[in-house]
Structures are given as C-alpha cells and as structure tokens.
C-alpha cells in the first residue's frame, strides 16, 4: 500500500498524448493493496495502455466483480465511469452495458476466484457472445481478501502458506477460452510490463472479447516457496513464445525483424498488431495447434506467455444481434415508440 500520495505536479518530461493528457491523467486513486502486489503492476500497465491509445477517459467504462483484483478499477482512469459490481457477475453487467452503448470502450478486471469459481459460467458465456471488451484475470491462485484459501487456478501440489498442498486440478482460463471459441487469448505476467502493455492495447482494440490471463503473485498469501504462482516460480518458468508489437493506425512500421518470424494482424480500427514469434513453429491463428502447443509445454511446468491466439474475423455480439450503428442509448424515443395509429392497427389482429 502506498501511503504517500504522489504530488499532482507534472514533471516536464511527462509527454502529453494526442489528447494533451499525460500518463498521470490516466491514474486513479491510491491503491489500498499490499505493497508489492502484482495487481498494482498490472494497474500501471493499464494506465500506460490507455495513455498510449489516447483514450478519452469518459469514453471508457471499467467494471469489476469482487475481490482484490476487482478493487483495482478505482486505481486507474478516474475520469472513467466505474462499476464495482458483485462477485462473479461483472461479465453479465458488462454485456448489458455493451448492448446499450456500443461506442464505449469496456475493460473488465477480475480475478481467479471471481472468474474461475463463482463467475465461471458468466465469463464463459461472455466469451461465447464475443462481447467487445478487454477482460483481465489477475490470477494469483489464491483468495486474498478472505486470507489464503486455494482458488480454482491453484495447481495440483501447489502449497498454501500454511503448507497444505492443493489436490484438485486447476481450471486454466487460457485453455478454457480456446475451447469455447475465444477470439483473443493472451497470458502474461505482472512482472513483465514490456510484454503486457502491447497485449492490453491490442485487447482493447480487438473486435470481440479479449481474454488476458495475467499471473499476478499475491505477496501476502501466495508468494512463498512451494507456490506455483509466486514471483520466483513464474520468473523461472515463464516461456515467452510470442510478443505483440502494437502499431497504431496510420503509423509507420519501423521495427525490423527477420523474415518469417512475424505475423501481422490488422485490427478493426486499422491498427496493426505484429506478433513476433520466439518459437518458430508457433501459429497464433491456428486454434488447435495453439491448444496442443500450450498443453505440451504446460505439462512440462512451463508457463507459455504472449498474445497466444488471435482471430479478428469472429462475430462480435452486436454483429450477431444486428444492432444499428448508433448506440441504443442515443436513439430518440420517437424512433422507438410506434405510436397510437400503429397500436390501433396492430389490435385488428386481436379481434
């Protein structure tokens, strides 16, 4: 927890973005999480992502469920509307919000308890509906706010702070999302901001549901020896296999990589995500190949990270629902109510 609020004074080196806002303008209130919590690093990456995307703060809606992770939306973009809802129910609330207003950007922050236990069903169905939103699971393998119970992402054999070993198999959000048709699946590590920021940016611009599972160690309850979600364990076993470079719309692609090592995907706003493969045989557009690759490496105890799977051609919720281009909230009442003459005509069939 940071007890000292940073001064509001702007350092001259803080470059404004296209909206004239500095990175400080994308911050929120002070974090009340434990010092060293992985979640705070993710918050910092989120702040950076919005700043770099030139997002107008009021055009963002940030939603969460309940848990340590779900507290974090207060810690970024204070100019955005926030909704700290109920445990495991954020996906439905985000779905309804998106249905009402397709113009806003939606970010949902959740945790492994919120998403993989109480809210597993809702998360899965939001994936199936392909709601346009960035959905972050701040995954620490433990219930922090209730002091250290195993969560559904705890690995078999992973030890609790009290030394007890978990015996139940974990739910892996990445494998799960792949199996139910997710169109954007990524995994990262809170300690790897360089990898995380471009993934978040790509996820925000993705047409559809972007799942980002971020291993985010809980320093208080799950960062000890024997835990498979600790800083030490994650650093040791992380296997970056594909890195995302985010190239904004109309920008020149400058970085140069050896031929055959990158794949470019154009997002719906014209931005380009360049996927740089560390593993040469990896194809991020082949769902079954990605699944088997991950399975193979995860069974060896490795934690493959990166923007693992991306498909920009999926049918997003509003496309499927065939809604008009104007957000439903902006349709004038006159366009919605058929009026008395139509009612009289309608009732002729009920004579």
């Amino acid at each position, binding site marked *: 927890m940071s007890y000292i609020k940073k001064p509001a004074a702007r350092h001259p080196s803080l470059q404004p973005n296209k909206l004239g806002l500095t990175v400080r303008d994308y911050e929120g209130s002070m974090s009340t999480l434990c010092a060293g919590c992985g979640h705070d690093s993710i918050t910092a990456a989120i702040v950076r992502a919005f700043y770099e995307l030139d997002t107008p703060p009021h055009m963002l809606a940030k939603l969460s469920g309940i848990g340590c992770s779900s507290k974090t939306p207060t810690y970024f973009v204070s100019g955005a*509307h926030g909704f700290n809802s109920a445990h495991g*129910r954020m996906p*439905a609330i985000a779905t309804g919000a998106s249905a009402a207003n397709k113009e806003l950007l939606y970010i949902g922050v959740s945790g492994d308890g919120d998403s993989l236990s109480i809210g597993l069903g809702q998360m899965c169905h939001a994936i199936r509906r392909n709601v346009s939103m960035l959905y972050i699971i701040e995954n620490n393998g433990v219930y922090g706010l209730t002091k250290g119970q195993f969560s559904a992402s705890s690995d078999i054999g992973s030890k609790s702070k009290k030394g007890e070993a978990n015996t139940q198999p974990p739910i892996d959000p990445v494998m799960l999302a792949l199996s139910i048709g997710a169109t954007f699946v990524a995994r990262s590590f809170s300690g790897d901001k360089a990898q995380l920021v471009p993934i978040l940016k790509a996820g925000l611009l993705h047409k559809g549901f972007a799942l980002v599972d971020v291993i985010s160690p809980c320093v208080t309850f799950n960062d000890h020896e024997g835990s498979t979600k600790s800083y030490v364990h994650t650093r040791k076993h992380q296997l970056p296999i594909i890195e995302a470079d985010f190239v904004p719309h109309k920008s020149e692609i400058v970085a140069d990589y050896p031929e055959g090592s990158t794949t470019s995907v154009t997002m719906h706003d014209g931005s380009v995500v360049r996927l740089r493969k560390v593993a040469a045989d990896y194809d991020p557009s082949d769902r079954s190949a990605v699944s088997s690759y991950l399975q193979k490496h995860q069974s060896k105890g490795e934690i493959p990270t990166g923007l693992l799977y991306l498909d920009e051609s999926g049918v997003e919720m509003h496309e499927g629902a065939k809604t008009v281009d104007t957000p439903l*909230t902006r349709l004038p009442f006159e366009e919605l109510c058929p009026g008395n003459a139509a009612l009289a005509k309608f009732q002729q069939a009920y004579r």
Partner: protein
Amino acid sequence: MQQALKLKVNDFAFKLANVNGTGSASANGLLMQAIFRMGIPVSGKNLFPSNIQGLPTWYEIRVSDRGHTARTAEYDLMVAMNAETYARDVKEVRTGGWVIYDSTWPLAASLVREDVTFLGVPFAKLCNDAFVESRERTLMKNIAYVGTLAALLDIDMEIVSGMLKEKFAKKPALMESNAKAIRLGYDYAKAHLECPLTIRLKKMDATKDSILIDGNTATALGCLYAGATVAAWYPITPSTSVLDAFTSLCAKYRTDKVTGKRKYCILQAEDELAAIGMVIGASWNGARAFTSTSGPGISLMNELIGLAYYAEIPAVIVDVQRVGPATGMPTRTQQGDILLCAYASHGDTKHIVLFPANPAECFYFAVKAFDLAERFQTPVFMLSDLDIGMNDWVIPRLEWDDGYKPDRGRVLTREQLEAMPKFHRYSPEDELGVAARTLPGVHEKGSFFTRGSGHNKLGGYTESPDEYQEVMDRLARKHRAARRLVPKAIIERHAGAKIGIATIGGCDLAVREAIEALAARGVAADYMRIRGFPFGDEVEDFFRGHETVFVVEQNRDAQLKSLVILETPTLKRKLRSVLAYGGFPLQAAQVVEGVLSQLPPRDTAATVAEEDRE
C-alpha cells in the same frame, strides 16, 4: 335421462377435455374467438400440463352477458375427448348438463350418469373417412367438435368461416381441411341431435370496442411502447411468451427499413443471474431495459436486485407468477411472489411493485414500471401471473397517448455537468429522495464509482455508521415517496357495507362477481383492489374505515395480508384471509364461501379506535 337445464342464453360454461399436442389449443381458441366476435363477454382458461405431448389438458370457456368471466367450475357441458380422464370429466358436469363424446366406440356403462345427457358424435370415424393422413385425422377430430358445438350452441357459422379465412389466408390447403372438419361435426349434429341446446348463444354488442389478448403479449407491447431497447431473459414458463412477443414486435416495429438493422438488443442469458445483470448493466448505461421471468428466476436474481437497489440503478422486472415453492407447478397460476418481490435481496431492501389485474393493465403498468424505475432509480417489479399472462382475455381496446414522454428521471446532461463545480452521485436529493445520476460516455466530470459496497452520500466508499445510515435512510424515504406515484387502488363502495374485501391482481373479476353474489345474500361489501406497493394513503384509509376486511389472494400464507400488516397501521385482528392456492384461477364461489364462513365478524369497534391512536 334427467330433464335438461332451463333455457340459459349467454350465461353458461363448458369444458373441453383433450390430450395435449393434438391441436386442441387451435380448436378451443377458435371457439373462444367466435363467441367473442358474436359480441358476448367470454373467457377461456387453459389448464395445461408441463408437457409437450400426450398428457391430459383442459380448456374452459365461460360466457356471461353480465360480464362475469372469472373462472367457474360449474360446467353445463363437457366435451370429453380424452379417454384417460373420461371418468372424472363426466363427474364434473352439473346435473342436467351434457356430455359430448366420441361415439366411434361404445360408451362403457360404468361411465354413464343418469342425471346428464350424453350426446354421441363419431368424431374418429367421421375424420378417418374424410382424411387420409393419421396426423391429420387426429388433429381434425378436435376441429370437428368446433362444428358440433357451433350447431349445439348456436355459434354463428359465418363468423367461424370468416375466421378460418383470416387464419389460413396463406395456407389454402389447411383452410380447406379445417372447414371440412368443422362442417363434418356441424352436419352430424344437425342431422342427429336436437339443436340448439337450452344453453345457447345469441349475438350481443358487448365486445365491439374490445380485443382478445393474453397478458404476456400486452406486457411486451407495453415494453415496446415504453421504449425499452435491451431485454435480457432466460426461458421459463409462464413468462417465455413475453420475450417471444417482444422479439416479434421489435422485428416488426424496430427494424430499420433501409439497412435491416435492429434498434434493440435481446439477450438470451445463461441464467437469471446473468439476465438481471445485463438489465442492470444496460440501465446503468442509460438504456431502458427489462427482464421477464417467474418465481424461480426471481429467487436467482435476488443478489443483483439488492445491488441495483443499493447502487440506485433502474431495472424493470416482470414476474409472471406460477405455483411455487421450488419447481412447483410450472403451468399453474398463483400469487406467491408478493413478499419475495416486495423485499427481494439480503439486507434492508424494499421495492416498488405493480399488480396488474388483466392484460390491459399489463400494457399500461409496463410503461409505468419504466417511468417509476427511472424516476426512483431503482428496480420495479410488475407481478403478473400465469392466468393473466397466458390466457386470452377480453379487454377494452388499448389506447396510446402520442403526447407521452418517457420519464427518464434525474439524469444530468453534458451541459449541466459542464456548468457544475463538482458532481456527487448521491446528493443533493430532491423531494422524492432521489439524487441526480450521470451516464457513462457523457462527460468526465460525471464519472463516479458505482458500488454495492458501503458508500456515503458523495458516492465514496465508507465503513462509517453515520455515513452508511444516512444513505440507507434516504433510500427508505425514497421508497415511501413512491406511494404517491404508483397506480392508486381501485375502490368501490356499496351502500350499507360493513365489511370490506381487499384483493390484488387477477382475483379482480372473481371478487367483483362474489361481491354481487354476497349482496344478493344480504351481505354488502366494499371493494378494494390494490395496484401498487408501497401502499398509497387510500389503501390505509380503506383498512382504517372498515371493521372487518377480507383479504382475498392466491397463496397459502396470506402474503398480501402480511404486507398490509407490516407496512400499514392496520390491526391484524380486523383482517380475515380468503385464500385459494391450488393453481387454478380464482372462482367467485371460493370467495363467497370464504367470506360467509368467517361471518359474522365480532364487534371490532374498539379496534378501530385503538388503531386511530397509532
């Protein structure tokens, strides 16, 4: 055989016993509509099983020139088309009545009653001779009895053939087979039976300004007219047809003619927890959104209803009640969710609840529900039930005021926010206890954190007792203020009445009929039908003004009575309950019996004085 009943024109009831999945719904609907078009007040009650094919199902039709169209169990005639239930169906006919049966097979002697007249028509044989396909033979047997009844009851055959023409305008083959089947039944009756019977129909002029519609369609129509753009739901009997109707209405009235795109978004959720979540998300964002469900769905929604109440987010929830608890009887009617909805969710919560009595009120109250939800920034329930929702009712033609403007409540515009020094979500409050809200995407100055956790009047997180209570007290004031805006109770006073009868929702017609019947027996009673919660002053006054009030409702535990005791100064001992909760719509006879069996009331003058001191 007994002597038949005396002549009864436009005042009798009959019942049709069928096997479900054999097309009987279509035949019975045809009968009901034909009578409606003859200008006669009529009602149809579909008593169907939770099943798709093969189980017993019944349909009851009552005609009443006096407009008494509540359910009655006094059947003058039975059409016994289901061998499985034949014995009990025959038993239900009143002495002097008729049974129409399929005389293709001989009637078992053990099933014959001496005091009713059996009219045999060989429906199976007639249809087997006239139709080739087996499915058609089954279906047309039911259509054939429409013809027989037309002959026996004097139904206008021109109206029947006109209806067939409309119904099958695009399917000439079907029109032909239906017309043929009706003619078979009609001709046979004319040739072999004495037509018409002494119960018969005669054209009237009582329905020309009316329509025949079910409550769920009317509810959907209300949501359409209110401007709802987002609907989220999970399929559940008996509310599914609300969303079916809303979907087809939106397709018709809300599709952009040029692009084919939709000015609505209907979300079939994974469960009711998600359905209400979607409604809350959409309403939070500024759309008019609703869900429709039944009791089991409300049980699941309880969690997020509390969130919407505490975070002050509008939501419209239609509950088409069925018989509980648990799965209960999904195709039977009840008013068992009154307390559940009034206080839904954990902690201190109280909601606005509307109680429509018929499809017309379903339409108007649905619109009202959106206005109230946005004015008070809170969930609003509309409690319909299976009887209102799924049966066809004769109601006055619906009218829409083209001058209607939706009441969006206190929502700050971009300009208003621009001019404000600072926005706080939960203050200042207006005279209704409501604070202004802002919508995402409008202005950075309007941003705030919506939360279900403890918050103070500025919208900030709190664990302070004073700050928490300050907000909770305002919510209580807000709820109390709503009593002035919910639909007023309908009150009808009668000369010399000492007792009152208070009721709710779909009990309306049966209670009115009972009041007439009681008056005929020398018991005058005033009538009140409560239409909204929180209760208005007129509700309290009615209870205060009567020494004894009978509360008629369709549940076991007297939920309306409990709510009155909890929420008004009314003394428990002046209230008597009349309860019917078996799952079929209420009958006047049940009310009459319930009232008479609890009369005379003891002298309660003292209790009135005591109450007035409160």
